[in-house]
C-alpha cells in the first residue's frame, strides 16, 4: 500500500482545516453537500404541511379564499420583495467572502440581516394585527362573518400561523447565524481558500427565501370564490 501519512507536522495546515479531512477542498465539498442534504430534509418538512394545507384547500375552497381575504397583500408583497433583495445581498456576501474582501463581506452580511429583520418586523406587525382582529385559532378566534364557515376559516388560519410561524422561526435562526458569520468575517476568517461557512449560510438563506415564495401565493393570493 502506498503511504499517505496521518501524522501531521506541527500545524502547517490552514487553521480551519478539521483534522479528519485530508484537505480544505474535501472539507468544503463535505460542508456544502451536508447543507444540501439538510435542505432536502427541510423540503420534506415544509412539504408535509403544504400537502396537508393543499388537502384542505381542495375540501374547503370557499373557506380558504375567505381566509386569504383576511391577509394583507400589501405587507405580504412587500415582504416578498424584501426577502428577494436579502437573497441578493446574501449572494453578494458569498462572492465577497470568496474574493477575500473582508469589509464588503461584513457589509453584505449586515445588509442581509437588515432586510431579514425588516421582514420579521413586517411579519410581526401583521401578526399583531391579526391577533387583534380575532384571527388567532383557538385562543382568540372571534371571526364569524360567515358563521357556517367559521371553523374552516379557523383551520385556514391555523395553517397560516403555523406555516408562516415555522418560516419565521427559520428566519430568526438565520438571523442568529448571520450575526455569527459577521463576527467571523470581521475577524478575517474567510478568503479564497476558505469561505465554505458563508456559502452554506447562503444556501440556507436562499432556501428560506424560496419557502416564502411558496407561502406567499398559497396564503395571500388565493382568488375569491362566490359563496352564499
Amino acid at each position, binding site marked *: 500500500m502506498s503511504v499517505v501519512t496521518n501524522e501531521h507536522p506541527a500545524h502547517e495546515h490552514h487553521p480551519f482545516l478539521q483534522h479528519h479531512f485530508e484537505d480544505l477542498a474535501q472539507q468544503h465539498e463535505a460542508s456544502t453537500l451536508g447543507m444540501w442534504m439538510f435542505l432536502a430534509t427541510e423540503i420534506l418538512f415544509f412539504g408535509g404541511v403544504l400537502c396537508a394545507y393543499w388537502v384542505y384547500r381542495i375540501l374547503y375552497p370557499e373557506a380558504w379564499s375567505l381566509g386569504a381575504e383576511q391577509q394583507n397583500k400589501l405587507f405580504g408583497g412587500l415582504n416578498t420583495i424584501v426577502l428577494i433583495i436579502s437573497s441578493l445581498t446574501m449572494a453578494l456576501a458569498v462572492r465577497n467572502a470568496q474574493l477575500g474582501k473582508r469589509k464588503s463581506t461584513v457589509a453584505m452580511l449586515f445588509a442581509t440581516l437588515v432586510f431579514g429583520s425588516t421582514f420579521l418586523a413586517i411579519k410581526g406587525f401583521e401578526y399583531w394585527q391579526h391577533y387583534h382582529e380575532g384571527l388567532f385559532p383557538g385562543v382568540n378566534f372571534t371571526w364569524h362573518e360567515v358563521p*357556517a*364557515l367559521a371553523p374552516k376559516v379557523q383551520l385556514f388560519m391555523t395553517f397560516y400561523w403555523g406555516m408562516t410561524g415555522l418560516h419565521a422561526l427559520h428566519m430568526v435562526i438565520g438571523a442568529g447565524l448571520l450575526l455569527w458569520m459577521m463576527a467571523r468575517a470581521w475577524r478575517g476568517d474567510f478568503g479564497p481558500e476558505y469561505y465554505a461557512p458563508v456559502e452554506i449560510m447562503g444556501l440556507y438563506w436562499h432556501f428560506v427565501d424560496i419557502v416564502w415564495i411558496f407561502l406567499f401565493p398559497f396564503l395571500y393570493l388565493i382568488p375569491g370564490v362566490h*359563496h*352564499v
Partner: protein
Amino acid sequence: MLSDFPLWPDQASTVAPSVDALMTFMCVVTGTVSVLIFIVIFYLAIKYRRTPENQLAQDYEPPKALEAAWIIIPFLVFMFMFVWGSWLYFRIQRVPDNALDIYATGKQWMWKFQHPGGQREINTLHVPVGRPIRITMASEDVIHSLYFPAFRVKCDVLPNRYKEMWFQATKTGRFHIFCAEYCGTLHSGMTGWVEVMEPTDYQKWLAGGAEGSLASQGETLFQKYACSTCHTNDATGRGPVLIGVYGTNVMLNDGTTVVADENYIRESILNPQAKIVKGFTGIMPTFQGQMSEDDLLKLVSYVHSLGAQKTAATPMEAPSALMGAGTPPPQKGTKP
C-alpha cells in the same frame, strides 16, 4: 382432535371459503419456497463447511441467468397473488342488490345496531341466514373497526362519515364481533355476538322488539325539527322536494352533480352550505350540534324511505303483521 386446535375460524359467510382458499394458496406457495430455501441453506452449509481442506472458497461464479430467474419468477408469482387478492377484494367491497340494511354505531365501548324495523340491539346483532346484509355505520367518537372473523370481513368505523360493509351468512350460529381498531380503555371489551338465524326465526325475533320503524321515527323528527316547513311535498316549498330524491343524481348550483346517498343527506343536515341544489339558495340552517347521531340516523332513514329506487325492503316470506313497519308514506302508490 383437530377440531380442538382450529387453524381458522368458522366459515360462516359466502366469502369465507374464498378468503380461506387464497390463504391456503399463499401458505402452500410461500411455505414451499421457504422450506426449500431452508433446505438449500442447510445442505450447502454442511456440504461446504470449513475444513482444513476447504479453507478458501472455490473460485466459481454461478450463471447470471440464475439471477434473472429469481427476479422474474417471484415477480410473476407476486403479480398472480396481487390479481387474486384484488379480485377477492372487489367481491368483498361490492354490496349486492337487495341487501338488508342494518345501521351500526360504534362508540366507546359498545356497538349499537339498528334494524330497519326499528329494533335496536347493543353488542348483539341478529341476522337472517342466506341474505346479504349491508351495514352502514359511523362512530360517535374515535375510530373503531367492526370485525366479524367468521365472515372474514372488517371495516373501520369513522366519526362523522358513513362507511359500508356487507356479508351474507351461510350458516346459523353464534359468531364473534370484535372491535379491531384500538379505541381506548375498553377496546378489548368492545365485543359482541352476531346471531345468525333461520329466516322464520329471524322474523319471530323481529316481531318481538319493534318500537316503530327507524323511518317512522325519522318522520316524527322531520316534523319536530320543522324540516317540513321548507321541504314540502311539492315545488312550492323553499327547499327541494325530498320525495324520490334518494339514490338519484342531484344537480348542484355550481354545475356539478352528486349522488344522493346517506353521506349526502347527512352532510345536508349538518353542513347545508356545502352542496346547494340548483335553483335554490343557501338559506337552510345547519343542525350541527343540535341533534344526536341517533336522530341523524333516523332522519337519514326517513329520507331514504322516501327514495325513488330504494323502496321498502323486498317482502320476505313474512307474517303480514310485520309489514306495518318500515313502509314509506303512500305518495308513490307502492303497496306495502
